[in-house]
């Protein structure tokens, strides 16, 4: 093993050597630079290899042949080695990336870069306080040099601001250090840590000053304006270095310093970290300059890591796993994003739409964002999981809440940005593609996935990258060049195959959900055979969602469950985002979904109380003070997915704007994931009381109001798919209501809704989607009279609406029947009034759907439309058959579930399935007889009428009586727009968008607060210095005053 001192020696030596080279030998100088960086990387790498794989113990490196504390010493361990490797690699990449700039600036710039990397390594290795200071100053000065490499002239100002601030920092540092030395008699970090007691006898202030100095380098709020300016104006490669390398090194310095301070200073670090994390993320919401946004994000991430450092004692052994996960994820992602920013010509966020033409770059962008947000399978995900668990287990709930809040904000602006990339108009400026830059950025992608694998291996929870569904989904990435039909076939086969292989191991409940989600998904995917192009990006996203669903059903532990949940959320987000105008809706979807997911994370963490491998089943054993909170958190999380009222506003847009075959996927299938979660939750935790309020009772109300509001809003929609989307809210409200009744039949009804809603909503979405595809609009009032042109779609819709409305003899009635039987034993009656009101309202929107699309007046421009494409009609016909079969023999699926549910409610079966009649305690129902009776009556009457009118004259659309006049034009004759005007007059007040107003106000508040507060960053370097000073004084007053 080569001593890490050689990293320093090589870096410096090469820098000095560069001075010897003649000015003309640019290539040689560049070669030396690269070689030196590679050598540094190799040394660090070899140490990492030794520590990680051979389990070597950390090594102390002495200088001057003298023991510390009398001479400076280095320490190299796993953390040091990996960070040093990170420094060297980012440095190397920066050198590669900046090749042109370096050639232009000459060997001096290369020397500065080398010294920068060397100095960051020094910061990491050294165990001597003053030496740390020296290396940090080296970092500062070389930063001052490297900032100037930017083509942006404004970098000059940014560098000066940085220098001003760093002057202040070094003053604090030196004063603090010398007094600390005075108190302890040593400059060695470990020595000082050992002499902690001495230090704090008289030297607490000294330590405080040092800590402030190091923390100031971490750009804490509000003393961070200078950092942003550097991020914004520096060369992207340097910004990457500044974010990844400087950030990581300084974080490690802070970590070392806190070692001296000991446990009592950790809360301060956490407090500063979390404030920075949240505030920087809020500020980032209003940024429209990409690099500045990345700057805010960097500051936020470093704040988060600082928070984690502050929780070092809590995390115990997991500390390096968590902090390292977040740190490396941040470093790689941020470096990658900055590198990408160098490829984008213009600086607005929307200008990144230029990436769209290059799927590989888009993939890189997605990877980085996922890495930053901490989505599975990236390290941040595992880290977030462990962190949340540690915090929850130790009662740090406020901190956990703030972390999750900040993370949500971060996800919001990052995903908003991603939406811009995919959806905004491609700018004129385009891309500045350069092979080497691209390669550098893509190498970060590789590293990201390697890290993902590594963290998966390190986590005790199982590696997500070894989960077959996920791998199957990822397989579609390299296969994306294949034609869509082939990929679709593969996807369908995969879904059916997985189900076929696994269904024997499912219990009845899992089986129902799995059947709806996997083969059910395959049926919907049949509609995708209709696309002709390659459909880049569709299959990875769709299969990611299905992978999440497949894993969700099989999840045994809370980790597996949560990971699957996030996977399906992300997959479906990408799917939804594919819609033409879905950008804002997809954003609101992902924000709400992640918000819900974070609540779930908090819930699981609270439930686990530190147990590493928490089984879902163990939710039942969660004890009293936590149980109701766990229940509430998880329930809200799941209800976000089912779009219960209050958190429903994402659904209409997301489902309506999605593509034709995506809407049924996300509506028919994805919503069921939320129901599955609720099932699992209620089966394990049962009834919970919070402050004396029965939580299931609250859910009952939420379900009822969702049903009412969903239905009510649906009747006022002009957009057919929005109508269906609102209807889903209502339907999910019913299901939620059934679940919350906490009785056998209620649950059975919810399950019935799972199946029914899947069938008819998928069918309706496909049918409406097919119509929208042919007519080129989703506004119902622009359609009309399509029945003869699209008869199959009409049949599907008609069967669908009869089923949805719950009119016998179709299967919707079964749901209503079970519902009535269920409420007979329910404890609460008032919410039922609302459900009763909601029921008939469904007729209104359903009638409107079929009337305004298929009946009424045919429009001129639609006279020649054809039936929807075969592949879109085929699944509809399958659903029609399925609906009829399910209507005739509902017992086929439900009796098993009934038996499965029995043990939860005292053992006996809820319904009697014997014979053709289904009997409950209160009533009975014989689907076959009903179907038969109605069928016979119907057929008889129909035949009779046909016979009587055998000579009837078929007439056309304007052959209607019109008070002696004739209609003007079809569009004035089709009564469709504002169809339920009287209803709006009577009950329109209930459709006040209170929830939307609430969330919009909240968003607006956050944005305006950010917009006003960020004006404190006036751009004046002096002001920034004052901020820093104020920061120190305020912390002094708050902290030392209280200490």
């Amino acid at each position: 093993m080569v001593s890490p001192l050689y990293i320093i020696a090589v870096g410096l030596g090469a820098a000095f050597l560069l001075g010897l080279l003649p000015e003309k030998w640019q290539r040689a100088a560049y070669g030396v630079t690269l070689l030196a960086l590679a050598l540094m990387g190799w040394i660090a790498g070899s140490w990492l290899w030794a520590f990680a794989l051979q389990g070597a113990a950390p090594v102390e490196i002495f200088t001057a042949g003298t023991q510390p504390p009398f001479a400076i010493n280095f320490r190299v361990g796993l953390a040091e080695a990996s960070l040093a490797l990170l420094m060297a690699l980012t440095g190397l990449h920066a050198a590669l990336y900046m090749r042109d700039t370096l050639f232009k600036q000459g060997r001096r710039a290369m020397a500065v870069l080398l010294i920068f990397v060397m100095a960051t390594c020094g910061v990491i290795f050294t165990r001597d306080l003053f030496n740390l200071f020296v290396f940090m100053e080296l970092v500062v000065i070389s930063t001052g040099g490297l900032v100037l490499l930017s083509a942006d002239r404004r970098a000059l100002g940014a560098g000066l601001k940085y220098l001003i601030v760093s002057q202040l920092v070094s003053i604090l540092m030196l004063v603090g250090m010398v007094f600390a030395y005075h108190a302890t008699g040593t400059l060695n970090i470990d020595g000082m840590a050992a002499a902690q007691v001495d230090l704090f006898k008289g030297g607490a202030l000294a330590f405080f000053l040092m800590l402030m100095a190091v923390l100031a380098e971490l750009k804490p709020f509000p003393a961070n304006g200078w950092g942003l300016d550097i991020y914004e104006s520096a060369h992207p490669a340097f910004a990457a270095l500044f974010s990844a390398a400087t950030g990581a090194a300084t974080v490690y310095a802070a970590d070392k310093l806190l070692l001296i301070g000991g446990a009592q200073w950790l809360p301060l670090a956490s407090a500063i970290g979390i404030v920075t994390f949240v505030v920087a993320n809020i500020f980032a919401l209003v940024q429209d300059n990409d690099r500045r946004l990345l700057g805010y994000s960097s500051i936020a991430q470093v704040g988060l890591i600082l928070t984690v450092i502050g929780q070092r004692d809590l995390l115990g052994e997991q500390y390096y796993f968590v902090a390292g996960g977040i740190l490396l994820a941040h470093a790689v992602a941020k470096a990658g994003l900055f590198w990408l920013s160098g490829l984008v010509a213009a600086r607005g966020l929307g200008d990144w739409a230029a990436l769209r033409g290059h799927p590989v770059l888009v993939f890189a962008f997605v990877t980085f964002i996922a890495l930053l947000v901490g989505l599975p399978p990236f390290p941040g995900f595992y880290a977030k999981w462990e962190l949340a668990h540690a915090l929850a287990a130790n009662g740090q709930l406020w901190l956990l809440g703030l972390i999750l809040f900040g993370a949500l904000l971060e996800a919001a602006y990052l995903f908003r940005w991603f939406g811009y990339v995919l959806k905004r108009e491609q700018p004129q400026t385009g891309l500045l593609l350069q092979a080497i830059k691209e390669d550098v950025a893509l190498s970060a992608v590789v590293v990201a996935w390697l890290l993902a694998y590594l963290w998966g291996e390190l986590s005790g929870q199982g590696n997500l990258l070894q989960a077959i569904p996920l791998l199957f989904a990822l397989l579609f990435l390299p296969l994306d060049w294949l034609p869509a039909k082939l990929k679709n076939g593969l996807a369908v086969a995969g879904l059916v195959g997985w189900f076929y292989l696994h269904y024997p191991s499912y219990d009845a409940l899992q089986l129902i959900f799995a059947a709806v989600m996997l083969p059910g998904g395959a049926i919907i995917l049949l509609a995708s055979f209709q696309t002709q192009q390659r459909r880049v990006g569709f299959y990875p996203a769709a299969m990611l969602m299905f992978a999440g669903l497949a894993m969700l059903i099989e999840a045994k532990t809370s980790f597996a469950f949560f990971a699957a949940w996030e996977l399906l959320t992300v997959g479906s987000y990408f799917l939804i985002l594919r819609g033409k105008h879905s950008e804002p809706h997809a954003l609101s979807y992902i924000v709400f979904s992640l918000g819900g997911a974070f609540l779930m994370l908090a819930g699981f963490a609270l439930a686990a109380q530190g147990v590493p491998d928490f089984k879902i089943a163990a939710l039942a054993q969660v004890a009293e003070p936590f149980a109701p909170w766990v229940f509430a958190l998880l329930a809200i999380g799941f209800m976000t997915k089912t779009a219960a009222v209050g958190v429903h506003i994402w659904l209409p847009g997301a489902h309506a704007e999605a593509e034709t075959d995506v809407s049924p996927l996300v509506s028919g299938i994805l919503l069921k994931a939320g129901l599955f979660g609720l099932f699992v939750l209620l089966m394990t935790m049962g009834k919970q009381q919070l402050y004396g309020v029965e939580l299931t009772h609250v859910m009952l109300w939420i379900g009822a109001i969702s049903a009412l509001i969903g239905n009510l809003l649906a009747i006022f929609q002009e957009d057919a798919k929005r109508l269906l989307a609102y209807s889903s809210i209502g339907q999910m409200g019913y299901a939620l209501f059934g679940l919350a009744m906490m009785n056998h039949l209620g649950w059975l009804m919810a399950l019935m809704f799972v199946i029914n809603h899947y069938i008819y909503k998928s069918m309706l979405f496909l049918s409406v989607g097919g119509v929208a595809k042919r007519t080129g609009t989703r506004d119902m009032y622009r359609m009309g009279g399509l029945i003869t042109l699209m008869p199959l779609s009409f049949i599907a819709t008609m069967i669908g609406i009869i089923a949805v409305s719950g009119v016998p003899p179709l299967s919707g009635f079964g749901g209503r029947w079970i519902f009535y039987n269920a409420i007979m034993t329910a404890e609460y009656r008032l919410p039922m009034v609302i459900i009763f009101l909601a029921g008939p309202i469904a007729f209104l929107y359903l009638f409107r759907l079929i009337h305004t699309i298929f009946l009424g007046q045919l429009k001129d421009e639609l006279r020649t439309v054809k039936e929807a494409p075969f592949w879109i009609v085929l699944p509809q016909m399958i659903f029609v058959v399925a609906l009829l079969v399910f209507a005739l023999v509902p017992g086929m699926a439900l009796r098993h579930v009934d038996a499965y549910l029995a043990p939860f409610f005292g053992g006996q079966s809820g319904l009697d399935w014997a014979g053709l009649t289904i009997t409950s305690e209160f009533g009975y129902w014989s689907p076959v007889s009903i179907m038969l009776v109605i069928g016979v009556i119907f057929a008889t009457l129909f035949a009779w009428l046909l016979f009587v009118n055998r000579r009837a004259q078929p007439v056309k659309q304007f052959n209607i009586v019109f008070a002696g006049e004739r209609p003007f034009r079809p569009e004035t004759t089709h009564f469709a727009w504002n169809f339920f005007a009287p209803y709006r007059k009577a009950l329109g007040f209930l459709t006040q968008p209170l929830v939307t107003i609430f969330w919009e106000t909240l968003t607006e508040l956050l944005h305006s607060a950010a917009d006003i507060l960020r004006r404190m960053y006036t751009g004046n370097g002096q002001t920034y210095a004052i901020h820093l000073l104020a920061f120190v004084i305020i912390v002094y007053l708050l902290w030392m005053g209280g200490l």
Partner: protein
Amino acid sequence: MRIPWALLTLFIVINYGLLMTALVQKIGARVGRRHGIPIWQNYIDMLKNYALRTSITHGVMFYLGPVFRLSGGVGLLLFVPSIYGSEMFANFSFAGDLILALYFVFFGTLGMALGAAESGHPYSAIGITRGLSQMTAAELPFALAVFAVALQYQTLSVTEIVAAQQGGVLHWTLFTNPLAVAAAMMSFLGSMMRPPFDVVLAPQEIPIGPPTEYHSSFLAMMQTNRALFPVAKIVVYMNLFFGGAGSWPEFFLKVFLIYMVSAFVGVVFPRFRVEQSIRWFLIWAVPLGILAVVLV
């Protein structure tokens, strides 16, 4: 063997319905000091409509409208036992219980709406929006009342509900649960398409609304339903709230009396606009229903 009996029930009820509606109309005329229509006028009108030589059709759903409508009426009648304690006139009540009846009411409404909409006539569509809007509010108190009654008797079987009301007038739900009955009767007014809730059929504004394009045998079939459906619906009310009927004479009497309630109200009150009637149901009828449910 149920089928012939069911057909017999159907036959009796259709004839009774035709005569009774004519009779009620005649009573109304007499109140206005008119002579009124002949008692058999409904038969003649139906026959005339079947006798028309020409007819037009707007498409297949145009046929299905009346079919749905009448199927709804016939189905509703046949899924509910007509005569309590009679094996012959229990119809097909084995197929389902009260809930079936409750939801089957909508079958005809929905189908009719579909058929009328096929004609492409804006007046039909306007009539339907009015009808459906009003229905959502009108059905709510009825649903609440039904729920209250089901809770009261702890069963959803119509037969058992009737059975529970036997043994004297005071055992009727009318007296044991007056709130539910009051709510249900208000709902009944709304569902009978009589004033003040008949803006759906405004004859001159939107020439009788949904069926504006219907004529000849289509209209005849709907006339049949117009005779049948109120009776079928009243049978449900009678069974739930008024002790059912043990014999045909009792059946005839009770149906007539219940029907007269809506006729009586109808001749006294002027018309409501749709939003007015919705508010009326929500303000007056629904609270009664809620009280009924809560107090059971």
